[in-house]
């Protein structure tokens, strides 16, 4: 298996799907001639040309809406938001058109669109550029939400997302673009709605998604090495659909859980998982399920402090120790 960057894994997914289906088209700001602000679409415009890989003006509402409209006629647009943060200006198109048009038409219209881009803090770009919308978007029935943590997952999930006939919100991470993972040469797909047990364990379950899953893995290593605690790490990968079975099975085994996310706490993904565990694992729990999220304030710019605003391995370790 080749060791490749997260961005290149995505790039391969686009390239393969562009080849597979002539209705797939990539669009967004700087995705074509500039190769993408983060070079995720590098070389694709050169290879596939203007028709399949297209630069847009800085008009997120209109170009996301254009993608939605095109998808209604059978095009399969893969739309880049240079940052998911900029979805705020296209919010209406996503929430009211992509998510609702199938329903309001009684199932007559489909919207096979992928909206993608990085959604993360931690890069010192300030509050307006560091939003993580996965809890908002997964609240909306009609949307699917995916947050891959590794290159392998990113490629397999992206290919599936492009083939999915529902609108998929695909959240990448600028801090991961340059990280490398093993990715097979042969084609593979990863279903939406399947969590990945990234580490097996018996004493406690750490549930996370996106980059927080990697932070949880690091915490699990420390817990094993320094505290003799065996933590199971579940990477949700997809937030909606959600792999509830995997969550329940693990917690029923370990009887304890800590939920980690880089989102803000109030009504975050962790709140939803906690409420599921409350309802379905009440008698299985030996301790309260605890949550860690980013410190509850807008993303601070100061590099020194933003590092501390997001969950770190030792924050997780401390929470775990408080209930183990």
């Amino acid at each position, binding site marked *: 298996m080749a060791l490749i960057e997260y961005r290149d894994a995505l790039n391969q997914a686009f390239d393969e799907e562009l080849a597979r289906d002539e209705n797939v*088209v990539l669009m967004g700001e700087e995705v074509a001639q500039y190769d993408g602000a983060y070079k995720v679409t590098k070389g694709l415009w050169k290879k596939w040309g203007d*028709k399949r890989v297209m630069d*847009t*003006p800085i*008009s997120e*509402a*209109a*170009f*996301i*809406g*254009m*993608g*939605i*409209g*095109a*998808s*209604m*006629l*059978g*095009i399969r647009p893969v739309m880049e938001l240079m940052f998911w943060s900029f979805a705020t200006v296209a919010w*209406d*198109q996503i929430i*009211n*058109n992509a998510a609702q*048009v*199938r*329903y*309001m*038409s*009684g*199932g*007559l*219209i*489909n919207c*096979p669109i992928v909206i993608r881009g990085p959604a993360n803090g931690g890069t010192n770009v300030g509050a307006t550029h560091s939003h993580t919308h996965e809890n908002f978007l997964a609240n909306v*029935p*009609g949307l*699917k939400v995916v947050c891959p943590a590794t290159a392998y997952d990113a490629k397999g999930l992206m290919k*599936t997302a492009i083939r*999915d*006939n*529902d609108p998929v919100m695909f959240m990448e991470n600028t801090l991961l673009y340059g990280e490398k993972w093993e990715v097979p040469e042969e084609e593979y797909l990863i*279903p*939406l*709605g*399947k969590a990945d047990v990234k580490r097996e364990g018996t004493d406690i379950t750490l549930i996370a998604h996106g980059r927080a899953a990697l932070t949880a893995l690091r915490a699990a290593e420390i817990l094993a090495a320094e505290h003799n605690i065996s933590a199971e790490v579940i990477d949700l990968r*997809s937030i*909606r*659909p*959600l*792999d*509830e079975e995997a969550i329940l099975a693990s917690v029923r085994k370990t009887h304890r859980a800590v939920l980690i996310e880089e989102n803000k706490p109030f009504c975050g993904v962790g709140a*939803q998982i906690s409420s599921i565990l409350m*309802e379905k694992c009440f008698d299985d729990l030996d301790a309260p399920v605890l949550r860690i999220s980013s410190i509850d304030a807008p993303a601070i710019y100061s590099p020194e402090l933003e590092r501390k605003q997001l969950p770190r391995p030792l924050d997780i370790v401390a929470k775990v120790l408080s209930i183990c």
Partner: protein
Amino acid sequence: MATSAKSTDISKTDFGKSPINARLSAEQKLKLLTDMVRIRCFENESVRQYSAGKMGGFLHVYNGQEAIATGCASLMGDDDHMITAYRNHGHALGVGMNMNECMAELFGKATGCSKGKGGSMHFFAPDKNYWGGHGIVGGQTPLGLGLAYALKYKGVKGAAMCFMGDGAVNQGCLYESLNMASLFNLPVIYIIENNGYSMGTSLERSSAFKSCLAERAAGFNMEWAQCAGTDIYEVRASVQVAMERAHNESRPTMLEIDTYRYYGHSTADAKHNVVGGYREREEIDFYKKNHDPINVFKAKLIAEGVLTEEQFDTLEEGIKAEAAQSAVFADESPYPEVSSITEDVYYEVDRQTEAGRTGKHFFND
């Protein structure tokens, strides 16, 4: 608004002589009239049924504007598409949807065009190239762009007509769309149905413009025009220019069509025809008397010898009966099952594909 100075004044030009109209057969002309009357009667019936408590939510009717939807729909070929806002019954009937599925939708019945899920603002018929029916003001304008984009992508010679009201022109995504339409040479036709009011606000109180709203497109290097919406011949002639531009040059157009609505904004609007309201009763009467698209066209067809008063009465009677019958159909139709609330949310779940069966999609328990 001065009731005399508007461009809805009957034009000096005889648009019946425009090639697109001159080649109409008597039958085709009667079809145009019939379609307008169908809209009028459907709307009257729906107002009646609304008053009788048969539906919920809002009801925005199209009375007074019939020449626009009918005229535009009549120009559509196999690859031409239409999308509009919430005042959409006229467009729906114009493209050929039947009264039963429309009335049943208003009643919230399972037999409605959207299975009772969309309601008055959300009629759809993709099989007739009709993409709704959208409730968020201006929200359909990027979708219209997307339809045009898809047509061009697929290499077919089609146009996407995207309608909006005079109030909707102040939603920003429209201008983003105009820029992209012009920049990418997309065959979209933005049509402003300017009925002079957005709810209780007159055009003058909501918009700053030069000669008209459509002229705003000029700044995006886009062709624009304004015409009156009283005479369906004029509507057809004006829209046809834009259609040809879309088909032959793949260039967009913004077209403003002046019109008028007889009813309030919705059935909940009590201020549209009362003293102290936002418009005088005389104004409404003026339009009904001088600019009614059905009366005007009827008179033309009688003058052309295509129609008699008696034939018209028969026609109208038949259509009224059709409308009344649609209310019976709607009334007798079943409500959707409660289980249907969570259907039509996800394609993959509805089809129970592998994807639809993987993971939890709904979270009530």
